[in-house]
């Protein structure tokens, strides 16, 4: 790790001249280290300590010092190493699936979960109790009619 930091620092020092020409860097090494893969260890640069990763880090530091943007640097790396050098797949063509499938999966899961919860909650609702109409027997009904007739 110390060696790696020294190598990057040495690269940055070596580029002190060009760096002076760029007063406002457009991206940072820390950001790109998370966006670019180490081609031989298949982890992002910030997770790798290999010689290949250190070489790419030195290149990125050099290009940042020359005021290159993250997009420019990524494009240059893709031209050299191919699209697999980027940690995230491109957002076009077949690679779009890699972006949309997880979202579709989460949405489908949420919908299924909601459906399950809804069904479960309905099953647990108490069944409405049908109250039997209090019917009057014939005798009571007759007496009630007689009583009401007195007030007519």
């Amino acid at each position, binding site marked *: 790790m110390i060696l790696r930091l020294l190598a990057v620092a040495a690269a940055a020092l070596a580029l002190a001249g060009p760096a002076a020409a760029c007063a406002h860097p457009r991206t940072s090494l820390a950001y790109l280290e998370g966006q670019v893969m180490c*081609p*031989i260890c298949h982890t992002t640069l910030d997770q790798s300590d290999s*010689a*290949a990763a*250190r*070489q*790419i880090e030195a*290149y990125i530091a050099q290009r940042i010092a020359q005021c290159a943007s993250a997009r420019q640097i990524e494009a240059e790396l893709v031209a*050299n*190493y*191919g699209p*697999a050098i980027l940690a995230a797949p491109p957002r076009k063509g077949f690679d779009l699936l890699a972006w949309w499938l997880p979202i579709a999966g989460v949405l489908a899961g949420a919908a*299924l979960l909601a*459906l399950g919860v809804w*069904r479960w909650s309905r099953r647990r609702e108490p069944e409405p109790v049908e109250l039997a109409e209090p019917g009057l027997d014939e005798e009571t009904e007759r007496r009630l009619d007689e009583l009401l007739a007195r007030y007519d």
Partner: protein
Amino acid sequence: MTRQLKLSVQLLALACVAGLLALLVWQLSHQQHAPRVGSLAPAFTLRRLGGRGEVSLASYRGHPVVLNFWASWCVPCKSEAAVLERDWTRYRRRGVVFLGIDYHDLAEDARRFVSAHALTFPMLEDGSGRVTGSYGISQVPETYVLDRRGRIVAHLAGPITAGPFAAEFDRALAEAAAA
């Protein structure tokens, strides 16, 4: 939920699981392994380092070929560079072709490496590692020696300067050149 809908959801879940299994099987069956000694070397066409045209392995059929996979960031590659150059100058008169294949490397650094070590045999670039993958390269340097028919005579998974590899490389080179 109706019975039909329930069945459809179950079928969909089964189809998803079957799809994932198929993907796993495909991945396992398409894993790249190093070609065996005695088998035909995988064909390729690669750009010359520096972009001056392309080179195809097939164009060297009839010549023994040494394929050396390297990268400028690889420390052992530096130690074997001088040996490769020496053997190249020694064997080229006997029709042996040396091809250096630079992989997962920055072209500018690779050119500096070639210049610093005064390497004169053809250098090709495999930035994406596609060809390197077809040779099952897992580390650099690695070297293949092919005979005149394109069959693999030797595969050295390490620097040719290292003890056992040095003798094997000399033997394979002599065998390929004599055949």
